[in-house]
């Protein structure tokens, strides 16, 4: 888990929370101890083996909850152990002793922790965790986290799109978890509540919510089916029972008989009193089933209160099955449309049929076959892994965001004027610059729309990039009202180079307006490849002007013509 995803901190905090809940609600048992204590120790040791975690497993605040609960658990276990050993009077005495000592130790530990934690600026929490706990944190301090679209808070439609009917079944599931509340079901409730909160902070944590929602709706459906089928069974068996009774020529059914129903009546009332108490418990339900299976007349009456009419239960069952069926259909659709369609190959449906936009792979294939193996490619970090994998070229920044200085460097280069950008890229030994441009076909997630993050992240590290320089009335614009800084930055130039010649006006279909600066030339970059729909444009850094040779000639000629004094004065660096 730790190896795969940083989201393990969710689990490592959720489990202690559950343990704490169990202790507080008096559900402590040796099983809990056996389950939890080894988990903390082994889990921490194993987590510390993962390179990126290392000593963070014992140093950061994300992990403290588990240790704290670990201590509490031991105290509680000790108390229970003492309780078993001593007489009640002695126990009380010991209790006070232990509590005072325990409290003192706890306070000491907590004080040390607080002191340690308070000494670090983020209170020991990593930025990622903080942005979860405080949803506004990332947008204030860590633009790189806020820049990722999957780190935005989700919208309501996305909830319905993703979990659909589960959204309605989950509350029902919670209710059935409380009837009765067991260790397991309390964990489920806790899991769900935290997952809902986190999914509300970031879209991508919908991933955490999904299993919780699935399990709880499963519980809800199962108990609903349980009630419905049980009542169906009861009603059916009554029907069958009645059938032969009438066939035997007995004048009345049991319910209609007025004579001497004493015993059964008594039973009925009694059982029906007992029924509501028994009904919810799982044990009794199981028993009920067994008893109904034994097909006697009496036990059925126990269920009287929880019995629904036959028609209603059949309709209810069918409706639930239909609901499940539609959900499957929805899931298949969502999986096919929203999740399976690779974002690298885009399709659009038109009257002539499916149109495929395979520009990304076109560009990557070009890079991989027609550039030198050692050439480095600079692009915004979103395309880093893709370029590495598909084009087999070294990139300057990729989707690993542990260190964001280099991302800021590329962001700075993209938002600098051409010459400054060329210098930055040249210092990074970059040969090619790749930009994604959707203005021709209307592909909205292109680099111009991501540009604000380049400015923000770049500005975070290099203060000479100032966001207000790029903003007109608080907005990023590339039309006639755009600021000169914006219209002169590299990103603008690389995206819109010769764009105006396509339609004569330079109408950007994503932004929906004509671009601000239409005719310009590139001096330090040259276009080497643009894909079929212009979605990916690749530029090559022009080689540095050969000034040295010019100097050499000049110095030679000067030395020829003028005296040796002049030659001595102008020192040739290559001599």
């Amino acid at each position, binding site marked *: 888990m730790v190896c795969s995803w940083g989201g393990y901190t969710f689990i490592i905090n959720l489990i202690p929370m559950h343990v704490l809940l169990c202790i507080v609600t008096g559900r402590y048992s040796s099983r809990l101890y056996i389950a939890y204590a080894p988990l903390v120790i082994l889990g921490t040791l194993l987590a510390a083996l993962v390179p990126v975690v290392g000593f963070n497993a014992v140093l950061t605040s994300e992990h403290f909850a588990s240790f704290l609960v670990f201590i509490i658990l031991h105290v509680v276990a000790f108390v229970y152990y003492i309780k078993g050993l001593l007489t009640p009077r002695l126990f009380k005495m010991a209790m006070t002793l232990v509590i005072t000592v325990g409290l003192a130790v706890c306070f000491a530990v907590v004080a040390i922790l607080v002191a340690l934690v308070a000494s670090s600026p983020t209170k020991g929490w990593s930025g990622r965790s903080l942005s979860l706990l405080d949803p506004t944190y990332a947008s204030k301090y860590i633009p790189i986290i806020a820049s990722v679209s999957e780190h935005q808070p989700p919208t309501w439609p996305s909830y319905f799109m993703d979990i659909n009917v589960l959204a309605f079944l989950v509350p029902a599931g919670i209710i059935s978890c409380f009837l009765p509340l067991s260790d397991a079901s309390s964990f489920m409730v806790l899991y769900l509540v935290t997952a809902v909160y986190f999914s509300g902070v970031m879209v991508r944590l919908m991933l955490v919510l999904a299993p919780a929602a699935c399990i709880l709706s499963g519980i809800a459906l199962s108990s609903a089916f349980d009630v419905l089928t049980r009542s169906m069974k009861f009603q059916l068996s009554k029907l069958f029972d009645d059938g032969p009774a009438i066939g035997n020529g007995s004048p009345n059914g049991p319910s209609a008989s007025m004579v001497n129903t*004493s*015993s059964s009546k008594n*039973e009925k009332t009694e059982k029906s009193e007992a029924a509501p108490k028994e009904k919810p418990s799982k044990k009794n339900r199981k*028993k009920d089933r067994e008893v109904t299976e034994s097909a006697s007349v009496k036990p059925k009456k126990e269920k009287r209160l929880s019995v629904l009419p036959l028609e209603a239960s059949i309709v209810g069952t069918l409706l639930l099955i239909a609901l499940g069926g539609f959900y499957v259909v929805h899931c298949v659709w969502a999986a096919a449309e929203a999740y399976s369609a690779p974002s690298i190959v885009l399709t659009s449906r038109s009257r002539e049929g499916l149109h*495929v936009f*395979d520009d990304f792979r*076109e560009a990557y*294939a070009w890079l991989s076959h*027609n550039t030198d193996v050692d050439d480095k490619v600079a692009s915004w970090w979103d395309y880093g892994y893709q370029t590495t994998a598909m084009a087999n070229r070294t990139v300057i920044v990729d989707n690993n965001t542990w260190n964001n200085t280099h991302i800021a460097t590329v962001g700075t280069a993209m938002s600098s004027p051409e010459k400054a950008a060329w210098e930055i890229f040249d210092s990074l030994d970059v040969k090619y610059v790749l930009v994604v441009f959707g203005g021709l076909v209307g592909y909205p997630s292109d680099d111009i729309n991501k540009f604000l993050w380049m400015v923000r992240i770049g500005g975070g590290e290099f203060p000479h990039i100032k966001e207000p320089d790029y903003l007109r009335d608080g907005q990023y614009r590339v039309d006639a009202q755009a600021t000169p800084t914006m219209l002169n930055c590299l990103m603008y130039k690389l995206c819109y180079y010769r764009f105006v010649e396509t339609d004569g006006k330079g109408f950007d279909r994503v932004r929906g307006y004509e671009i601000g600066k239409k005719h310009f030339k590139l001096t330090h970059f040259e276009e080497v*490849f643009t894909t079929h729909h212009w979605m990916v444009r690749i530029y090559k850094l022009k080689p540095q002007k050969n000034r040295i040779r010019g100097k050499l000639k000049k110095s030679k000629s000067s030395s020829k013509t003028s005296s040796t004094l002049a030659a001595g004065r102008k020192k040739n660096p290559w001599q």
Partner: protein
Amino acid sequence: MATPLRLAALLLLVLVAAFASAARADLVISRADRKVDLTSHIVRVLTSLKVENAGSEPVSKVLLAFPNIQAKNLAAIRAFGTEGKVKGLSSILPIEVVEPSGVPPELTFFSASLHKPLTKGKILHLDVLTVFTHFLQPFPEEITQADSQLVVFQDSSHYLSPYPVKVQTLSIRLPGGRVESYTKYGNTKLVDSELKYGPYEDVPPFSYNPIIVHFENNNPFAVAKELIREVEISHWGNVQITEHYNIVHGGARLKGEFSRLDYQSRPYARGVSSFRHLIARLPARAHSIYYRDEIGNISTSHLWSDSKKTQLEIEPRFPLFGGWQTTFTIGYGLPLQDFVFSADGKRFLNITFGSPMEEILIEKLIVKVVLPEGSKDIDVSAPFPTNQWQEVKYSHLDIAGRPVLVLEKPDVIPEHNLHFQVYYKFNNISLLIEPMMLITGFFLLFVACIAYMHTDMSISKNSPSYLAKLQWDEVQATVQQIQGIFGQCLAVHDKLETSLHDLSRTGDAKSCKAARKAADAQLKELAKELKPLWLSVQSSPQSYQIWPKLEDLVAKEKELQEKLMARHATVVDSVEKKQRGQDIENRIASQQQKIAALRQEVESLLEYLSEI
């Protein structure tokens, strides 16, 4: 670049003059017509010769001379000979490289052996088809996107031959378009896109008169640096062909920018030297065709098929300009019966050698024929020399591996698209080896599972834990039996209940009594059955956990029995005494409650037991 060649040619001429006397003078070429086709990047020269034996001795070999510089690019040479005046009865003549003595080393000689020697005065019509690759040199070598591609062709206006040539002509077909320059001699004509030299008369042997044609050729210079063709035979009915291409545009290199804007707005003016698609002609019944590269499927391809052929038009991911390259893979399946036949106990594969692409030059072609596992006596017959060796390929469920016959040939052109045969022996029973292996494997797995379930794997038969487990199993079995008995008891109780019901409906006290008697007897019997089980549980040391519960159960059940019986008796009594229903209810009310409570307890105990 053209100048050194010309120098070489001149040098050659001098040398040739020196050796002219050494040439065989017995043969005379009375007429030589050469047709050079320069429309694609593969140069084809068809030379029609009329050879006359002017000497006295019969001649069985005709020598064909090429400058080394051409011979190096020669991809294929074929000669067809017809003796006498009759046309159409031509036969292919075998050709081999010879090194006759006393000839200049700058020339390479091929000799066409005649089927029967040419006697004095006889005339032979000899058609020689020669195909050259890399013969057209792009000049300039680097062009921009807007330029069209210019190439240089160099040859001699005189037919280079060790024999004197009486009359000869040369015609060069150009692809149309601009002709930058051409060498002009006396009778040189350029009509439309055909350049004509000659006729020249009475040219001595080894005469070489260099010409240079510089012209525009924008036909795709598709060169496959390497093509690996894998032909895999499956006797289940499929021949699978997979072709891995590494294609490069072999023409003038692109320099400067590539502008998509120019390419899209004026594709014929800007980007005329590039090519964007290739056409493959696949066999008629090709199926499951795919086209992909290492990063996935390429969606730009079209397929047409009719009963004669399947035509696949593939577009690489990007248009190829000079020097650009790309790789891709195409694959298709073919029906087995169209390509694999059997003759005299052997099977043979009969399939074309080269690539199905049109006008493509393959610098290195590797054909791998993967035969099914268990093939023996592999033998190949190819229409031209190839490098051959054998490999082994392991695929799914292979034990010995599949024998792979590898053929390698450099510079393959469409003319090499001939059939070749691979003979091998294969027994059909070998087909069943893999399915049988799977069946046996699964069978053994299941047998192992069954055996495992039925064997006792405990190490020591005397260890306390093992004994305890045995005892516990025993106890569980007994407890189950006891449960069954109690279930029966409860059923008997239910019967009593129903008899009471019947009583309340019918008032038949006698039958009710009888029912009670029967129930009593049954219960006694059950109690008897219970006894030995009971004792066995009691004696077992493992039962300490459930023993109190069992005891409880038995006691409770006994009580319940008594209570039921008592109530039954009361009810029957009161019915016999014709008491009112209300009274009866009052009398048994207290009993009723106890019975219900007991029953519940018994049931919960049973529940507890069943959970163990």
